[in-house]
């Protein structure tokens, strides 16, 4: 279980104060207006931002003293997930070993995972030769092979067209059924994930304003604010 309690971060023009709980094995969709603090929340869990106060634990372990590389966390960004000079296998391999000295078993694991995300035979392609959707599949495969139990997806599919976006979300859903991972995913259009997510959190002005089952959130008094957030950005 991921437990965030009163984690406070202060900038000159923005204050964030997060409290959120996500059950182990759940997929939590994070929605809200841009500039409201969705990405900061994920960056804080990953260790790129350090809260001045509050607690952050996952599976009972305190994450705050850990360096980003030591946290049980894998992250996928909206863009620039892959290093352009490395091929697909190498890019995925970074999730296991940054030195890229991979064992036969690890290479096999990479091949299997690439097959699972629908990229069989793409192993020696370079990112520049692939579409945006394919590149995000590679990033997803890397998060999966890393074996880290908490996966953060920061607007992972927002730059893809609606049909492809939906396909990718279904792929994420399929993957998490095969292995025990907890996922936090920020998304732009709540409808995309309303039926796959176990939980939905509405983040605005640096706070988790509401959290619950997707249907509850989407049909709550927040509905007009959610609609405004979607249409404004």
């Amino acid at each position: 279980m991921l437990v965030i309690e009163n984690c406070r971060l202060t900038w000159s023009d923005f204050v964030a104060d997060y409290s959120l709980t996500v059950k182990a094995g759940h997929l939590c969709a994070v929605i809200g207006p841009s500039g409201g603090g969705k990405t900061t929340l994920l960056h804080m869990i990953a260790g790129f931002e350090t809260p001045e106060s509050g607690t952050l634990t996952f599976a009972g372990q305190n994450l705050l003293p850990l360096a980003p590389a030591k946290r049980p966390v894998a992250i996928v960004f909206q863009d620039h997930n892959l290093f352009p000079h490395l091929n697909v296998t190498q890019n995925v391999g970074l999730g296991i070993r940054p030195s890229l000295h991979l064992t036969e078993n690890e290479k096999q694991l990479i091949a299997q995972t690439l097959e699972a995300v629908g990229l069989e035979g793409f192993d020696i392609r370079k990112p520049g030769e692939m579409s945006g959707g394919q590149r995000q599949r590679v990033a997803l495969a890397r998060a999966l092979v890393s074996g880290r139990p908490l996966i953060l997806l920061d607007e992972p599919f927002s730059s893809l067209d609606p049909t492809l976006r939906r396909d990718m979300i279904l792929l994420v859903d399929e993957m998490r059924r095969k292995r025990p991972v907890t996922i936090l995913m920020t998304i732009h259009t709540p409808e995309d994930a309303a039926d796959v997510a176990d939980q939905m959190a509405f983040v605005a002005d640096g706070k988790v304003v509401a959290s619950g089952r997707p249907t509850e959130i989407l049909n709550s008094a927040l509905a007009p604010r959610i609609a405004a957030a979607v249409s404004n950005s």
Partner: protein
Amino acid sequence: MLTLRLPHPGTLVAFAILGLVAGGFIALATFDGGAPTLFSIGPYLGRVLAFSIIQATLSTVFSLALGIGLALALVRRSFPGRSIVLAALSTTMAMPTIVAVFAVFAVYGRSGWLSEGLVFLGWPGGISIFGYPGILIAHVFLNAPFVARITLDGLNQIPAEHWRLATAFGFTPAQIFRHLDWPMLRAELPGIAGLIFLMCFKSFAIVLALGGGPSRSTLEVAIYEALKIDLDFGRVAWLALIQLVICLSMTALLHWAFTRPPVGHTVRSLVRRPDANAHSLKILDAIVLAIATLFIAPLALSVLTGLRNIPDILEADLLQAFITSMAIAATAAVIACILALALASAARRRRLVLRSPRIAAFYDFLPDTLLAVPPFALTAGLFLLIQRFGDPSSAGLILLPLINGLAAVPFAYRFVAPHLLTVEERYGRVAASLGVTGWAKLTIMDWPVLKRPLAAGFALAMALSFGDFGIIALFGGTELVTLPYLLYERLGAYRLDEASAIGLVIVLVAFLLAHVSGRLSHAGH
């Protein structure tokens, strides 16, 4: 029905430029007087070529090493005064070569700071800077900051996500260099290296003043000496042809293989580099910063000593030289802007209206070829042409702004061309459907977008021309004196105190113009 249409102004300009260059060469080659064969100047040519290539290679290697080291150290470290260092790096790029020559004399010369320091410490013998040491010091002083600046811009363009990934994966400093810094460097280095090699290969003022012997010449200096000392037009033509072929092939290679989008105004990435804490890199960066400071700071600061000598040079000839320099620079800038505008608008018409990208690419390449034309040979050729028609004594007044203007066309073109293309892409169809063409199109559609980049190009062209010590070396004398010529004269007479004041004035004007240019080009974005 037969209609007579005037060609596009850009077409006329292109033909005029080609005509000038070809005419100059033909005039040189057909000037009567026993023209030497290539064979007869062979051994001399071999020595000059070997020296040009060796000094340019060494200058490039040292500039890259210091520049890249400095960029990496600056991007990893923050310290008080860092922003001043960054600003200083940008300004050294506008430092005129003749002022760099002064700086080398002031710091490493016979009575320079280093010499005096060594004497104070009890070192008996003097140090000689002529030949390789002086030339390399001046070239590295001018080019290392340029390398550092371009590398910094490249490093700042690495996406923030990649730094976060490097942090999340726990990359070691070596892995960070391999996966983040090196791919960027590998993409940028060949272009930067080629450009620096070309500039050092063509180097004139620095090699003329610091070479210290007839065998230590670049082709450019050899052409100058053939003109000034021997009046051997045949040899000038041969040397110029070889220089043109070498520089043109290098320019073409650089233009086609390594052109990259111009560097934008980059903000420093807010993500902290995860390798900033590594102890080995802290030591390395401290060493690099110390070397860079010890090397660059005295040279840069030596110019400031001119401040106390300013009263000594406030005579009539300084004011006269200042006015002459300004007038030549302004005329050159006007010429550069008009030519660049005409060529860029022809390139745009070919690319977007007539749909012939190949001809457009030729127009894009033409300004860069001007960098390959040896200015002395072109000047000599045009001088021979002019003297058939008029009074050769006033040739300098016509040729100086013209040659300086031509040399500045590639820089003005880079400011103007992208904006012209953007306007056409946005409003071209509207203008066409309304029937707005020609002059009206230029004033209504283009001018509002063009005025800032054009002014920026004008200021930079003026800065370049103002500090240029090139063909003024041929025409300078009692009749015609520019500030760089005055500085060269004082250096030749070992009047370092007066030279420092003149150098300071040149640098101040050049930096001010370059600064205005930078402000104008960034303000639009």
